[in-house]
């Protein structure tokens, strides 16, 4: 069960990527007719995320395509490849607050 807001946002981005891949996946021969189910799941997720965080997500998505980027073990942002300070990673690894990359401004998700 996903509870933390950042994790809900990650689940939202995963869902958005899935929705945008539908036509490609169909072209490869997969059955993918249940788009309505995904849109419903999306609505449910959105209802659990604060409006301000959703606003940054949508704004970043317009600019970058992916609003949230993974951070590798060595603290590299996989969006812009800068090395993040260790002070940030301690907070980041706890997944309890939303942290933006100092380099590209995207939301960070520590792996």
């Amino acid at each position, binding site marked *: 069960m996903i509870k933390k807001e950042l994790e809900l946002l990650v689940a939202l981005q995963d*869902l958005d*990527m899935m929705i945008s891949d539908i036509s490609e996946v169909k072209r490869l021969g997969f059955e993918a007719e249940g788009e309505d189910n995904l849109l419903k799941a999306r609505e449910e997720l959105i209802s659990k995320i604060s409006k301000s965080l959703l606003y940054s997500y949508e704004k970043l998505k317009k600019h970058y395509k992916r609003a*949230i980027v993974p951070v590798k073990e060595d603290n590299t942002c996989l969006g812009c490849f800068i090395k993040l300070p260790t002070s940030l990673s301690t907070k980041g690894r706890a997944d309890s607050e939303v942290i933006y990359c100092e380099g590209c401004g995207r939301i960070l998700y520590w792996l």
Partner: protein
Amino acid sequence: MKAQELLKYFNEDLFILDVKAKNKDELLAELVDRFVEKSYIKKSDIVLEMLTQREKLGSTGIGKGIAIPHGRTTSASEVMIAFARSKDGIDYEAIDSKPVHLVFMIIAPPQDENNMYLPILGKIVEILNKSKNRKTLLSIESFVEFIDFLAEA
């Protein structure tokens, strides 16, 4: 894309010749747990949620005893593929309602450098469409044999 190019996405850590799972939920959980156990991903619930949503779009049990659960997730940094086999068969709610014996689970990052995710997915479908290949995969006994198979597929 050539089958040999797939080699680098496989790892013995993610190769299971005899899965315990008997149904789709158990299988997805067993494989995702393996990714976590071997430290390829941090937490299982986000990936499991993504794969479960994917099944709501349509079963990735594409028939002929094959399932290819797949998706991009923000909780991965590279493309990873797990192979699993079930001798008894898994109740996967496949499109032809037949039990699943061969599983390729493909987990991809939100963005990968050369956008390899969809070509990889397509290549695996292509390989599994050939009955000769399915037969070989049902009979291999080790990861080395599996790699030899891919190198020649």
